[in-house]
């Protein structure tokens, strides 16, 4: 979409005005600074998704739109998670982070902060694997994605 003030609020406004739900939304400028790329995750029947697609395409600031689920694609989300890691629990958190291929990016006497990348399910699984009482803080970037193979979203 056009990297312009107000473009994001047009998208957000469309979803709230028409009663669609945004599960996650990420947006950042691309290699062309006049363009931003937004990845938005929503849910609905085929009819609803079709209507959302058409309504988004109508927005003047939307340059091009692609439904990732129409083909094979890669989804990634970044999570930073702060976990209490003291005494016996310390080793367990480290081990779990290794299993999920996470990295410990900050350490104190009693805490680890783990950085983890993957699709949404993997991040959910990691959170579920940790002792719930030890989770201090979770921050997730929202999903971003790219199509596999030749298929590409280009202007």
């Amino acid at each position, binding site marked *: 979409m056009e990297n312009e003030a*107000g473009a994001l*609020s047009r998208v957000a*406004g469309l979803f709230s*005005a028409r009663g669609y739900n945004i599960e996650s939304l990420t947006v950042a400028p691309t290699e062309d600074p006049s363009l931003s790329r937004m990845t938005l995750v929503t849910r609905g029947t085929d*009819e609803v998704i079709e*209507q959302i697609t*058409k309504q988004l395409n109508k927005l*003047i600031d939307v340059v091009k739109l692609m439904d990732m689920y129409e083909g094979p694609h890669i989804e990634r989300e970044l999570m930073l998670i702060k976990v209490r890691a003291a005494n016996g629990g310390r080793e367990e958190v480290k081990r779990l982070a290794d299993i999920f291929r996470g990295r410990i990016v900050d350490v104190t006497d009693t805490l680890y902060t783990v950085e983890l990348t993957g699709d949404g399910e993997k991040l959910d699984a990691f959170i579920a694997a940790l002792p719930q009482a030890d989770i201090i803080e979770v921050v997730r970037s929202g999903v971003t994605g790219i199509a596999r193979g030749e298929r590409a979203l280009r202007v």
Partner: protein
Amino acid sequence: MVFGYPGGAVLPIYDALYQQDKVQHILVRHEQAATHAADGYARSTGKPGVVLVTSGPGATNAVTGIATAYMDSIPLVVFTGQVPTALIGNDAFQEVDSVGITRPCVKHNFLVKRVEDLAETIKKAFYVATTGRPGPVVVDIPKDVSTQVTEYRYPKRISMRSYNPTVKGHPRQIRKAVELMLEARRPVLYTGGGVVLDKASRALVEFTRLLGFPITNTLMGLGSYPATDRQFLGMLGMHGTYEANMAMHNCDVLVAIGARFDDRVTGNVEKFCPTARIVHVDIDPASISKNVKVDVPIVGAVGQVLREMIKQLKATGRRPDEAALAEWWKQIEEWRAMDCLKYDRDSDQIKPQQVLETLYKVTRGKAYVTSDVGQHQMWAAQFYKFDKPNRWINSGGLGTMGFGFPAAMGVQLAHPDETVVCVTGEGSIQMCIQELSTCLQYGLPVKIVNLNNRYLGMVRQWQEFFYQGRYAMSYMESLPDFVRLAESYGHVGMQITDPADVEPAMKEAMKMKDRLVFMNFLTDPAENVYPMVPAGAGQNEMILV
């Protein structure tokens, strides 16, 4: 021509207007009226309407008119003043986030932050407003931007990478549609405002005559097919004719052209056209399969697609099944014989239907008719037979009371020599009554037909039908003396109370070519609009008289 109202943030623009004579500015008495007047101008000419208002309350007053235009896809360019860029976000005097407030009811909007961008933005605004599915565009101009000076460069052409409306219908889809129409045994054409907007009336008439199919228009499409033609079934929908709604319900092929399956048309979508295969032609892909799933979608400009269909139909050399069509017409004529618009012609009270029939007769069907919203709007749509497009001007989508009178000013300014009539009620007219003053200033001889039944009639009708006659707040008490009110504004007022006086009074009013005449008809307060498809019912479940 610009419709507007000055204020602090637009003083530099008004100062520039003062020093030129190319742009005529019409000073309204309320910003809502500026947008409705520009809207009436646009609907009656096919050209974009232009509005200029100040920041803050100027912009918020304009919002109702912008939303009205948005719902009916009318091209408007609305310039709003804004506080200087340095003050934006500071809760400055007369500051409001105009771009934010109008965002959900515009096709697009712009905040101009640099004077160098101004000319190109204005070009873009007109381009976006008038192409594809038209709509209102707001351009918000901070006061420092309109004060600064730059070299004037207005681009001749504009292209926007993110905005390229599809105009040409897909040939294969058009072929499919033609095939379906040739196979039809009980077809109906259902056409709407898109035909008017795309100036495709002539193509529609040729297409309809070529096929011999029955045709019905939506409220917004009236006039795009001549109402006096035998193939015309009248308006469809909640207050549509029996024959139009029954034909819809029983058809086997429905061809929707420039119409959007509004809930006032479809009734209960579960019960909508149960036996039909549906073709839908629309410039806006988002309108297709939004409310009702269709079998043959065609995205494209209505006129282009119609002309292509005519070409392909002729090329096949085939005709729809004549015998089946004759049988279908026989059935339709039976429905038509129900005479669903009949009313008591011997009443000693003035019936609103009589007023509209007389208006049609006295103006010989040639007037531009604007309306407000309510019962009078439906009676006007039912009883004034429009044979030409752009003559019927009403707020169909948003249903804005107060629209009709200022819209009539815009129409009259665009067509100074034509008869322009505003059909209204004592509720609606009071929502923009202040424009009587504007009409005096510019000598606009609008004829106001006020169907005064001392009730918010449509509200009263619903309360009678669905709320056991509990008439909550639908009685209009303490009404002004409309005759003296009109006179105090410098116009002519007439009071008509006897059915026998309706025609002579109207003739007399129409003779006053250069005067605004306010005709106050005291009509039967208990009259209802029939037929009626109650909300949530199927199209065949009409309440008749």
